[in-house]
């Protein structure tokens, strides 16, 4: 099975990267670009077939390591 975890900075937290990219896109003439938010995604291969269990385990991984819930939100999908 595969888990895809998306981690984004919380909506009300400053995202300096996103701001820098927006500015750069504007400077390059892509004026149509509004807000830009930058996040990470992680593809994890999992040696398990138990979907429910995988779900619980991945949630735990996110809480413990993959996201810092102080400033980040996460969501994930399971595939296969």
């Amino acid at each position, binding site marked *: 099975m595969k888990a895809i975890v998306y981690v984004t900075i919380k909506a009300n937290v400053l995202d300096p*990267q996103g701001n820098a*990219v927006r500015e*750069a896109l504007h*400077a*390059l003439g892509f004026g149509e670009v509004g807000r830009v938010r*930058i996040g990470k995604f992680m593809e994890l291969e999992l040696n398990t077939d138990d979907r429910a269990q995988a779900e619980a385990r991945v949630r735990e991984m996110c809480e413990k390591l993959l996201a810092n819930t102080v400033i980040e939100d996460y969501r994930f999908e399971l595939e296969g």
Partner: protein
Amino acid sequence: MRFAVIVFPGSNGDIDCYKAVEDAIGQPVDYVWHTATDLSDYDAILIPGGFSYGDYLRCGAIARFAPVMDAVRRAADEGKFVLGICNGFQVLTEARLLPGALIRNRTLKFICQLADIKVENNRTPFTLDYEEGEILRIPIAHGEGCYYCDEAKLARLKAENRIVFRYVHENPNGSIDDIAGICNERGNVLGLMPHPERAVHKWLGSDDGRRMFTSMLRAYEARRREVTV
């Protein structure tokens, strides 16, 4: 010989480059703002270290579009010396003036230390005053200095003797083939992760970087002699 030190928002090695030109060879040097469009007054362009535009997204990715970069490209085409150090090297690869890319250090940590590097090619304008095979101690200070290019490019770099410096004793960042610095085909554009401008006085831990500046001056003077003769 006139030097330009390019200043992007977030450059921070600009002052060190400026001081190194003064201290090592006493030649005239100016800071040139990223919005400048004309570098015709200058014989050598230094692209300093730092975190241009915060290095957000990728190192050097945003700086490559600064207005001054067209002028840098022209200078390179005209055969002027272009030296990109650390972030400057990253800018040059993003701008495709040099091949490959610089990615995160294998350790995923920023590394600041003296590195031993070997002079692999002393026939560039930047390395004339070094011996071939000589080992230099030059500081490194980077988080994303792991050089990468594909097999074909690497073969070509080797065949054309364009790997100018290699790390020896220890490869600090995981660079492919221990690469610390490379040049373009003509040899007038050099990019390297180590900081020669931070190694210009013994009391700084090493003065091995001085000769990069004396080399440039000598290459420039030799070229001028050729022109006038």
